[in-house]
């Protein structure tokens, strides 16, 4: 009882108020996890990074709230319906979804410790992410050229902040992806590198989830008939 009890603080499902007596009614589910001792490092790493991702998502929710509030504040300029090109958004969405899928394939290849498939699927992930980023930058520069830059109205400021912040995350993710490929190449499938890759894949999938919210609420909701 003692060794398993002290060490389960993170991975356990029933940690509170456990005296010598309180232990008796905790059978079944919690018994199986707490008796197993501390959670594996992989679970703890994933949990910690998940907490970071959720805080990131909460930051994005602030930007979403700003955008929703300032949606109509166009300062006499163009609104969402005149500015957004749904075809471009559809291609961006396809790129990011396929990139997320390729990242999933990469995590399967890492579990298999297959070097070639790992590097190949990471390369595909990165290329699709870069294509997404290129399309987004093209859209941004097109908007600025048409005089609809972030300084024109509160609506455009909030739009560029929200979508640009997602784009900045994608850029950071691409840099991280490059370093992951280099680490797999140079150091192989060591455990700590697999943990880093776990964090990267969580990050990349979470960015796709944020993009779902962006294309639905910003683009589709703005251009609907």
């Amino acid at each position, binding site marked *: 009882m003692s060794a398993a009890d002290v060490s389960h603080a993170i991975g356990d499902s029933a940690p509170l108020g456990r005296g010598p007596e309180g232990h008796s009614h905790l059978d079944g589910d919690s018994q199986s996890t707490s008796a197993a001792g501390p*959670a594996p490092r992989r679970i703890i790493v994933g*949990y910690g990074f*998940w907490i970071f991702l959720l805080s990131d998502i*909460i930051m994005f929710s602030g930007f979403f709230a700003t955008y929703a509030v300032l949606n109509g504040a166009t300062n006499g300029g163009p609104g969402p319906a005149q500015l957004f090109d749904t075809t471009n958004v*559809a291609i961006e969405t396809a790129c990011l979804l396929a990139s997320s899928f390729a990242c999933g394939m990469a995590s399967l290849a890492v*579990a298999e410790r297959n070097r070639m498939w790992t590097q190949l699927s990471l390369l595909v992930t990165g290329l699709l992410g870069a294509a997404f980023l290129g399309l987004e930058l093209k859209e941004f520069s097109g908007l600025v050229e048409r005089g609809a830059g972030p300084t024109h109205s509160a609506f455009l400021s909030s739009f560029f902040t929200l979508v640009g912040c997602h784009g900045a995350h994608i850029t950071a993710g691409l840099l991280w992806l490059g370093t992951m490929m280099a680490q797999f190449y140079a150091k192989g499938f060591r455990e700590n590198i697999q943990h880093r890759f776990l964090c990267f894949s969580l990050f990349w999938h979470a960015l796709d989830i944020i993009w779902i919210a962006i294309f639905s609420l910003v683009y*589709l909701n703005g*251009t609907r*008939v």
Partner: protein
Amino acid sequence: MSSEAEFGTPPGGNASGHSTRRGVRAYLIGLGLAILMTIASFWAAQTHLIYGPGISVAIVVLAIAQMGIHLVFFLHITTAPDNTNNVLALAFGILIACLVIFGSLWIMANLNRNMLPMEQVMRMQN
């Protein structure tokens, strides 16, 4: 879910060809469902078949469904015992995000309704 779950069992434990095939199939199912949801929401934004004010509701519902699919099939959030903490953290994150978004909208709509228009404020100052 499958043994190569992102949040699941340790890496390289017993990754056999069989479990990889299962993993690929799970990702393919997730991809297929996500594509369906995406197409449906792009269609809903263009169509005239849905009652107008219902369109944004349809878009939001499809977006939430697609997020759920991504969480289950790509991020491997499950109900397994070693995933309880992740689910709880997710629930808390959703709570805070909803408070931020709907709270802001509520407060700003209320201010918008109750405050004088700017021109009137300027006129009163002169």
